[in-house]
Every structure is written in structure tokens, then in C-alpha cells.
């Protein structure tokens, strides 16, 4: 049975990236893989929006980037949450929970 794939809601990509980076610093490809795995292939990250999003988050000062040796022994650009990023993540999480609870109530699931 094929799993239904969902498009990412506007703005949720930022939340997903920040949440992924909360666990450990990661490079762009790793982030997309991680999101796909954890969502059990429901969420597919479009590469065309992932990298601009990473640049945007860096410009906001929520994440920083640095070159590090990756798990397959090559140089990769690793992203890391900053203190500001952690605060932002907490806020976005709370927003998301409020939003999804509200949607769930209307849809009649909860």
C-alpha cells in the first residue's frame, strides 16, 4: 500500500529544520533524509526550498554553519542551532501545537 505523501504547509519547513537540528548538528542532505525517515516517508523535502530555507535561517541568526568532516569522511557544511534558534524553535513548537489542536478539533478527530 502506497503511503500518501503530503506537501509541506507554508512555514512548517522552518519548524522541521530547527527540530531536526535540535537533536544534533547536521548537513543539508542529512536534514532532508532525517525528515523523510522520521515522518516515515510522508513528508518529502523539496531540495529547491531546503537550501534557500537554510540560508534564510542562517541570515536570521537561528542557525550557524561550519565545514566539518562527515560520517563518510568528506567535508560537509554542518548546521547547528544557536541560542536564538532554540528560543525560536520553542515558540514555533508551541504555535504548531496550538494550530494542530485547533485543526484537529474542527476536523473532529480529537
Amino acid at each position, binding site marked *: 500500500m502506497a503511503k500518501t505523501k503530503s506537501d509541506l504547509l507554508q512555514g512548517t519547513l522552518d519548524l522541521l529544520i530547527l527540530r531536526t537540528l535540535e537533536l544534533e548538528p547536521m548537513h543539508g542532505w542529512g536534514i532532508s533524509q532525517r525528515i523523510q525517515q522520521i515522518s516515515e516517508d510522508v513528508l518529502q523535502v523539496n*531540495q*529547491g526550498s531546503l537550501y534557500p530555507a537554510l*540560508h534564510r535561517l542562517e541570515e536570521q541568526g537561528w542557525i550557524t554553519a561550519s565545514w566539518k568532516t562527515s560520517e*563518510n569522511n*568528506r567535508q*560537509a557544511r554542518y548546521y547547528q542551532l544557536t541560542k536564538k534558534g532554540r528560543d525560536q524553535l520553542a515558540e514555533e513548537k508551541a504555535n504548531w501545537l496550538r494550530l494542530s489542536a485547533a485543526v484537529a478539533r474542527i476536523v473532529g478527530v480529537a
Partner: protein
Amino acid sequence: MGKLRSIFRYLFRRKHFENDIDRELQYHIERQTELNMHHGMPPAEARRQAALTIGGMEPLKDNCRDARLGRAIEVLAQDLRYGLRVLRKNPGYSLAAILTLALGIGANTAIFSLVYGVFLRPLPYRDGAQLIVLNQTVGADKDDAGFSPIEIAAYTRQNHTMQGVVEHHQMSFLLMGKDMAERVQTSVVSVNFFDVLGVKPLLGRTFLPSDDDRRAGAVLVMSYKYWRSHFHGDTSIVGRVFTMNNIPHTVIGVLPPVPQYPAESDVYMPTWQCPARSNSRNIANVNFRLIDVVFGRLKPGVTVERARADLEVVSRQTQAAHPEGYTGLSHFAVTAQPLKFDLTRHARTPFLILLGVAGFVLLIACANVANMMLARLLKLERELALRSALGAGRGRLMHQLLTESVLVAVSGGLLGLLVAPLALRVLVGFAEEFTTRAAEVRIDGPIQIFALALSLATGLLFGLAPAFARWDQMESLHQGGRSTANRGRQTLRAALVVAQVSVSFVLLIGAGLMIRSFSKAAREDPGFNPARLISMRASLPLFRQTSVEPFRKGITDLARQVREVAGVESAAITSVAPFAKVLLAQGPTHNEFEIEGQPLVAGQPVPTVDGRVVDFGYFEVMRQPLLEGRTLNDHDTESSLPVAVINSTMARHHWPNQSPIGRRITPDHGKTWFTIVGVAGDAREYGLDHKTLDEIYTPMRQNGGFGNVLLVRTAGDPRRMIPLVESAIHKINPYIALDQVSTVEDLEYESMASPRLMTILLGLFAALAVLISASGIAAVMALTVRQRSHELGIRMALGAARRSILAMVVKQGLVLAGTGAMVGAAGAIVLARLLTALLYDTSPRDLATFGAVSALFVGVAAIACLIPAMQVTAIDPLQALRRD
């Protein structure tokens, strides 16, 4: 901080940034390829699929760059560079655009500074908005009645709405130092005058309540201007003693350089020091209304309306207590208005007209630049279409055109700021004719912000014009930029030109009306001969004199001695010189009188007349013709029958179709009867643009007053005679102070200063507007010719005569101009009415003006069309056909 570093890195460590993106995306593709191979794809296919997940590499990188703040700055810098390059490449276009805007913005900045300084800038006094001016008026025309000391005391003590009430009247006294005698304009004021205005002294102190006392000794406060000009800013002036009215006066302070209200004076003194104001008989007389200005400061939160009602109550109480002061006064009323309004009431109409006109000129300039912008856009069409096809977003292109127009506008604005001070110097002189606030006009912070905002706004306004004009990129490419099909844009350009032409037409009508009115006024006969005539006021150093007799004798002797001076033909005495500044400022007086045999009827207006006190020989020196009877002579003395000469307007007014000679009139309800012995021609003493009023001339020795103005008719150049006459008088008595010395021709010229300046300004603006519109028409026609050269070439190849093609092009231009002129004429009929107050003997719908302006316009438009149309003749049919 992090953001700044990031912007810096983006702009100046660009290589690192690009390198990072490349390596990052490279890494992504490698990992994806490995993953794909792990799922069993052959290597080539794995790599292809991996690249596909990324999509277009360049757009993705561009999106990453767009996420950076530095990007916006980079784009702006690019556009600016490109804009500057374009402007440099089209110097004609750029110069025309920048210069038109500079003129438009410069003119607007200058006029706005004027309006701001006069109307908007807060008064330079503490809480200026609380200051109100009181007025007592009589008669249906609301003539100023002035105030008597009794009335002022009542308003001061009995009002409930004001914190302070102060009075002011101006006298002219002799100030005598060790070796000098000078006539000084003296403000006689309440001791709390400066406290109510909120003016602090620059040196020393202003008046204290204790100065309001004879025993404290007489004191003076000097104006800043007088102190600078006569004492060179000497700080030891405080404490110096001068003699005035024969008693010592001590200077106690100097005012700061604030505009003086209500009048410019040299020195200020408390009321008791003015002999007329402090005379005990005058103080007790409610009819002694010497004081012309009374103002006060409202208590916090009190409105002008409440103060008015309050003042009316007080006035009714005074009228009940002193009924003798109000018998025979019709329509007596008291009112009040904000000081600011009072200071600027004469300036309102001319300034607002100028502001409107300057705004119009700027609009025309904007339309012109928008038009040039559209023309440029047409030339660029192919380039833009190409760039658009290659993927440049429409927003990006708009951004770039907008940058270019803002660049032009801001350059124009900065240049305009350089032009403005020059224009302002002329304008301040103009403003001084209307208000004392002109001294406060300058270009400072708020004005510069205004100018820059104005240029930004115009930049955006005409930068948006291309946005109205949509371009179809494919069509443009196909047509090879020959674009004959974009009718929309042609219509827009035509509409812009029509709008320009119509606005310029309105301005030209306004200027035309002013010129016509001015030339009509300037051609008026003054009714006397001002050539070779000098006027000067002579003040005799006579003090402690309680009667006018010594003054009369002194001035009569002086006139006789002046007649002996070599180069003087004749001399006479009058109370005020024709066209004198004081005369123009104060306007005619309305002295009530009764005609023998025509008793006053209650409810009917009392006849009034403006009067001069003159000496015998006056009409002869003035060369004012005598129409009937005789002039005044030296047999008209205290002991002979009182006589008067009237002017012909008065004669026609009261004795139509009959002779007034021998009729008698009385100014004092029958106590004195003056017999009319002569009728003189009308003289326009209040300025050539003022119709003559009823005028009466009475001999100095019979009417209880005296004149101190000498009129001297010279044989040669009057300007050269002035110093000779002055030194002759000072040889007779060095303590005679002479002021208001001028030739009457100069006074006549100055009396027309404000209509002359208004005419010149409107004329200049209209000329500017016409010039800009003409260049607009020419530009549009030039473009039409260029665009249609292909079609015109075919026509010529098919045998059309060049002349008929020329005519066709010119006709097209004239249709535009004609349409604009018609719209303009309709607008002018509506708008010219605003000028009515400034026009002399000219209807705002004056046919001659409309006709002349239309003719001028057609001529200018024809020339503007003809120049580009001439290019038609340069078209080589073969070339035109072959051209791309």
C-alpha cells in the same frame, strides 16, 4: 551584529560565499548519487536522478542568494550603476529631465519656505497660539476705531478670559545724544508688554511694574536692529542716557533679534513717558482713541470665541458707564482674533496663489519627465523584451526603471536646493510687502526634508508611468522594436501633453491677467506731476510746547528758507506725502462731516472724507490742476473764514451737476464751518492702482493741526538735490531731524512693488511652464516622427509631397496643443476668479487676455511641432524602408 557580518560577508567575501554554495550542493548530489546506487541504479543514471532532485542549479543558487539581506543592497547598487550609465549615455535626456525638475523643485522649495515661515512656523513668542489681538471697529466697513485709555483699563481689569492685556501705539520722537538728534520710531507700550509676548532681553532687562511710575525715571528698551545699526552692537549701551521730550531717558535693555510685533520700532517706552498718552485730560476722555493695537494672552484652555464673548460683555459695561464715548458711533463692535492670523492676513491670498502656481509648474515638469521616460522606454523596448525573455522578472525591470527615475528626481531635487536660496532672496523682499514675518523665512531642516520628499515623490510618480504602459515582450521582439501597435502608450503620452498644455495655459492666462492689470494701473494718471519732486519729513526740536503754533511757525519758516536754496523751484507743506509708505500702510481716514442744509438722518450712513492738512502753494508745487474756484493762499489764516478745497470725486459725489463752490461743511456738528472755495483734480495718492476717494484739503492755519512733510520741486535731477536740500536745512538748524526722505517718483515706483513683483513672479512661472510644455510637445512629435519614419518613407516613396507630410505632422501636434488649450481655457475661467482681489480694472475673463494668450500658445506650439517635423524632410525613403 551577526546580520551586519553576514551582509558584509555577502558583499565583500563573495568568493567564499559562492564557493560554499557550490561545495554544499556538490556534496548533496554526491550523497544522493551514492544512495541511488545503493538502491541499485547504474552510476550514470544515479547521478542524473540525483541532479534532478536539485532541479535547475542556477535558479536554486539564485534563491539562496535571495535569502540574504546583502542581496537587496547589491541589487540597488547594480541598478544605480546601470542607471548612472544610462544617464551618462543620454546626456540630453538626463540634463533636460534634471534641469526641469531642479527648476520645479527649486521654485516649490522657495515658495514653500515662504509659506512655512509665514503661516506654519510657530510664532517666535512663548506659546504664540495663546496670543490674540483685540479690535474695536465702527461703521459698516468695520474701520478701526482704536482704543482709549479708559477702554483699555476696562478690558484689562474686567475680563475673565485673559492672563494679560497690553497696549501699543507708535509715536515718532526725537532722540538726542551729545552731538546728535535723530527721529526714532517709538513704541509706547504697557510695562508687561514683553512678558505677555514672552520676549526675553538680549542685554539688560525689559520693563518692570516699577517702571510704570513717573518718580522711577524714564527708561528705554532698544530694538536689536537699531542697536546694531546705530550703536554697532556696543554692549555698554545699557545705562546710557538720552534726552527725549526734554527729559532724560536711560537705556535699560536691548531686545533679541525677533520679529517685532505689531510694528518695527527703534525704541520702546512705558505709557507714562508718551506726552499724549499720559496727559490727564486725555486719560479721562473716553473719546481719546489714540491706541491702535491691543492684544492679550488667553488663559490656558480658553478659546478665542469665549474671549470674544467676554470682551463684548466688558465693552457693554464700559458703554453704560461712559455713554458720551459712543454717541454718533454707528455699528460699534469689539472682536478678537489670533495674533498669527492678524500678522499674516495680507499675505494669505498672494502666497497661496504662488504656492498653487509653483505646484502646477512642478506637475508640468513631472509630466514632462514621465513623457521622456516613456520615450526612453520605447527605445529600450527591445532590450527589455529580450531581458524579459531571458528570465529577468518584470518586478526586477520595474525596480530598475524606478531606480533610474528616482536618481533623476533626487539629482533634480539637490540641484533645486541650490536654486531655492536664490529664488528665496527675491521672494522675501516680496513677502515684506505683506507681513513682518518675512524676516523669519529661511531654508532649514523642515524645508530641506520637504524638498527631498518632493523629489522622491516626483521620482516615484513619473517612474510609475512606464508601469501603466504594458509591453508585450513577444510582440516587441517580432516587431524589431518598431512598435506601431502600442496605442495604449501613445494615448498616455498624448494625454500627458494635453494635461501639460492645459495647465500651462491656465498659468499663462493668470500671468496675462496680471500683466494687463499692472499695465493698466501703471498707465493711470496720478493726477499730479511726480517728476522732480522730493518729499521729506522734518521734525523740529521743540519741546514743552503745548500749542501747535510754534510748530506751524517753525515749519512755515523752514519751507520759506528751503525755497531760497539754489536749484529749488518751489516748496510746500503737507501732512503726508503722496505714495508715502505710512499712507499706503494706514490707508485713507474716514472723517465724518455734515453738509449745510442736509441734516444727518438717523440710520443713514454719515458722509466721510479723507483729509490732508496743507499749506498754501501745495497745489502749485504738486502741479495738481485746479478745476474750479481758487486754491489756498496765504490770506487763509486763523483770523479769516475757514475754507477748503475738495477733489472732483467728492464734488461729483455730493454735488452732482452743480457747483460746490460756496457750499459749507462742518466736521464738528456745526462748531466750525468750512466754505468750499475750490475743486482740484483727482490725485491717486494711495497708489496708481487705487481709485481716488473723496478728498478734502484744508489750510494748516485753520484746521487746528499742522503738517511736517516738505514737498520740494527741484529744477534738476531730484536725487542729486536731496543732499543739497538736507545740508541747507541742517545749516539753518542742525537739530532738525529729517527722515522719510525720497523722491516722489521713487515712492510711486515702490507703491507698485507688490503688484509688480506678483506680475513678474507669475510671468516667470508661466514662461517656465510654457517652455516645459513646448519641450514636451517637441519631444512627443520627435518621437512620433522617428517611429513613423518607416511609414512616412513608404508614403514618400509612393509620391507624397514632403510638404504635405510636414503639414500632417504639424497638424497632429497642433491638435494636441489645441485640445490642451481648450481644456486650459475652461480651467482658466474657473481659476482666474481667485485672482480677482489682485486685479485692477481687469475682469478675470478679460477677452483680450484670453485671445492674446491663445494666439501666443498656438505660435509656440507650432514652433514646437515644426522643429521635430523638419526631420521628416531628412528622411531618405530608401533608408527608411531598409531600416531593420
